[in-house]
């Protein structure tokens, strides 16, 4: 009861929080007032292909441009043809739903790129009314590693290590918040994926705004910096709001953790499909960073925006570490994570700490979303696609520990990328998830976790 009135007092009597709400509203108004290009989607009944291949040298996914496709009805009646655009995408609208044969012209593939399975140059897809049907053509570049000599292998290992560290750092941005929320409240937040996706779309919206006011084609750096700032602020506010209006009331009511977990799932589905509703299902790319060519550092190739994102994520993670280690807020967070009752009885305001953890988690997740999307794509299920990797990282490092989340995610990132040396690229995430199962079998508390948590 005392805690409750303290909460109310703090909420009613705190100028800082009132200012924060004002700021959020300002940002919201600012975002709403912008006319966005290409919001919503036209009807896209047709056949869709997104063609990309992993470059043998850089390991980057590269869109295959200018590849010619022809589409026929199942009985062979031609429907049309066309070529992939700069994003490696080909789309042909069809008049009626049904089954279509889609044939790729292998001679138009970029030099050195071949079909992984030459017999699958024609695929059959079923187009449902009002929907686009996708077809998947597997491409490979280079000799497929068969003729590679030793220095090439070493180069590839180094490149994949870089990619792995990059992925691990980006995953860790989301994982730390997830782990701290679990540590302080015991809740596994399945909606964390959508906080990551939200970060992607915040930046996408900022880019739309920048384009609207004429900032974009020229001021790329400024645009993306504004985007990052917006992701931090709006993401943090989102986390704060979720705790304030959803999970704090549920905790106060004594709602069991499993029920709260189901609520996070409901939230995840809601947010994911609201984003799909408004932005459509096609993948987008940040205009301010797309089309960069990789630069070589030693033997490793990396795009400038990836490099900046890696450096920024290291800086942010170091700052988070220092905050956790050195400041009162950070020490309180760790104390609540370690032993909530003890922390509360030594005078720490647990609800306030939880609120701070949600805000920080939201901000970090949104920034992680920006980093992930600049390296890959902006997609309505972008966060959900990495959620399982983040879970794997957090489990591997030890649920509830911030440093464990970082270590675990780095290992998962490295594992995912380096495993492509031995297994097909399409299965790389499977390896990471199997690692998680093995860890649970032999050391369920994870690398840095403590035994009593697994109960």
């Amino acid at each position: 009861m005392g805690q409750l009135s303290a909460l109310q007092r703090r909420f009613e009597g705190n100028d800082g929080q009132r200012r924060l709400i004002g700021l959020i509203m300002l940002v919201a108004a600012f975002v709403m007032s912008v006319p966005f290009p290409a919001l919503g989607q036209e009807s896209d009944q047709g056949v869709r292909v997104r063609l990309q291949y992993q470059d043998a040298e850089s390991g980057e996914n590269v869109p295959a441009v200018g590849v010619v496709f022809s589409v026929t009805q199942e009985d062979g009646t031609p429907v049309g043809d066309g070529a992939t655009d700069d994003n490696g995408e080909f789309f042909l609208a069809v008049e009626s739903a049904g089954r279509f044969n889609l044939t790729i012209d292998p001679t138009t593939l970029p030099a050195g790129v071949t079909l992984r399975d030459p017999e699958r140059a024609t695929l059959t897809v079923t187009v449902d009314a009002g929907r686009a049907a996708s077809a998947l053509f597997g491409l490979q570049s280079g000799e497929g590693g068969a003729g590679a000599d030793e220095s090439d292998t070493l180069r590839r290992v180094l490149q994949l290590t870089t990619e792995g560290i990059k992925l691990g750092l980006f995953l860790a941005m989301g994982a730390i918040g997830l782990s701290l929320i679990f540590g302080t409240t015991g809740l596994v937040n399945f909606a964390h994926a959508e906080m990551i996706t939200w970060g992607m779309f915040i930046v996408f919206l900022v880019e739309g705004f920048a384009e609207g006011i004429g900032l974009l084609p020229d001021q790329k750096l400024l645009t993306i910096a504004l985007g990052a700032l917006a992701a931090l602020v709006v993401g943090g506010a989102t986390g704060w709001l979720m705790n304030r209006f959803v999970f704090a009331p549920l905790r106060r009511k004594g709602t069991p953790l499993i029920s709260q977990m189901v609520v996070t799932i409901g939230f995840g589905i809601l947010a994911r499909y609201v984003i799909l509703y408004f932005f459509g299902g096609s993948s987008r790319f940040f205009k301010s960073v797309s089309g960069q060519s990789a630069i070589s550092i030693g033997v490793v190739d990396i795009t400038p925006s990836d490099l900046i994102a890696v450096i920024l994520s290291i800086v942010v993670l170091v700052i988070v570490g220092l905050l956790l280690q050195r400041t009162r807020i950070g020490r309180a967070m760790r104390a609540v994570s370690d032993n909530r009752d003890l922390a509360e009885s030594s005078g720490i305001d647990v609800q306030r700490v939880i609120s701070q953890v949600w805000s920080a988690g939201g901000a970090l997740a949104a920034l992680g979303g920006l980093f992930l999307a600049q390296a890959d794509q902006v997609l309505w299920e972008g966060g959900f696609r990495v959620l399982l990797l983040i879970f794997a990282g957090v489990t591997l490092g030890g649920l509830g520990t911030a440093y464990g989340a970082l270590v675990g995610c780095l290992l998962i990132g490295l594992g995912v990328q380096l495993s492509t040396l031995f297994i097909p690229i399409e299965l790389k995430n499977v390896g990471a998830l199997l690692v998680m199962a093995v860890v649970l079998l032999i050391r369920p508390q994870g690398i840095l976790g403590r035994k009593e948590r697994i109960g």
Partner: protein
Amino acid sequence: MTVPILAAIDWAQIVQLTVSSAIGVEAMVFAMAAIGLNIHFGYTGLLNFGHVGFMAMGGYGVGIAIVTWQLNPYLAILIGVVFALVLALILGVPTLRLRADYLAIVTIAASEVIRIMARSTTLRGLTRGAEGLNEFAGEYYSLSPFKQNLYEWGPFFFTGNNLFIVIIGWILVILLAVMVWQLMRSPWGRVLKAIREDEDAARALGKNAYWYKMQSLMLGGAIGGMAGMLQVIAKSTVQPDTFVPVITFFIWTVLILGGVGRVWSPIVGSMIFWGLLALMENLLRQFVAEGWIPPSLMDSNQVGIFRFILVGLGLIALMTFRPQGIFGSREEMALDAR
């Protein structure tokens, strides 16, 4: 203003589509899957977030056995069940000794692993990748007493094959529900419920909680696998991307809507869930078609997406305001992670 709109709606069509959906293939498949999930979560307290993985195993078991291995279709059903049981064993061994959250994470991960593997080119010899396995259910339909034409009762109509699978499916659902009812009244079922309420107490009474939980996981998983089989037989195709994680949470919504830990709740929950979805969808489609909802706000593509938004909202609202669903009791839903 509202009255002419209400009058202009084609209510006969709406009712027909709603009722057809509430008794159709999807409602039947989800009712059966929810019976399996109810054994896991409702009676044993196992937090299974990857139920769609069991459905995929059952569906692929049948498809692979018939198309790839060219086996007898009745043996194929057995193989589907075995596939689901194997998945339950693999999942249970590392996680059933741990807390509920771990089972949740591992099960959702496992269901994605299955989907990714099934659509991979590596296993294409077995599963035919993203295209999936097609046209294998003919043998089952040769048992059907119904002809190929449409069967109509007033506004309702089914094709012969559809009618056959729906009738067989609902009979199975009811048999399974009766089986669960009897099982949960037995000493075995009481041990499961004891584990749900207090695992340590059950263990203190000398019950091997781990083994009981494993049996529960296997039984519920096998029923989930049967649901997957019915689904792929009804469509005569098994494709990896029908087994996405969001399906698991549809099943959860069905179960929570009916009431967790109640025998009939999966059936009633599934009928209401699919009936409501069809009602909302078709009402919205008419609104959009008649121009009552401006196209800038919602087009016909977005109606389909809107269903998922409703499911998300429904899950949040149910858990917040009525966690016991229609039939459940609030005390029994006051479970905590263990």
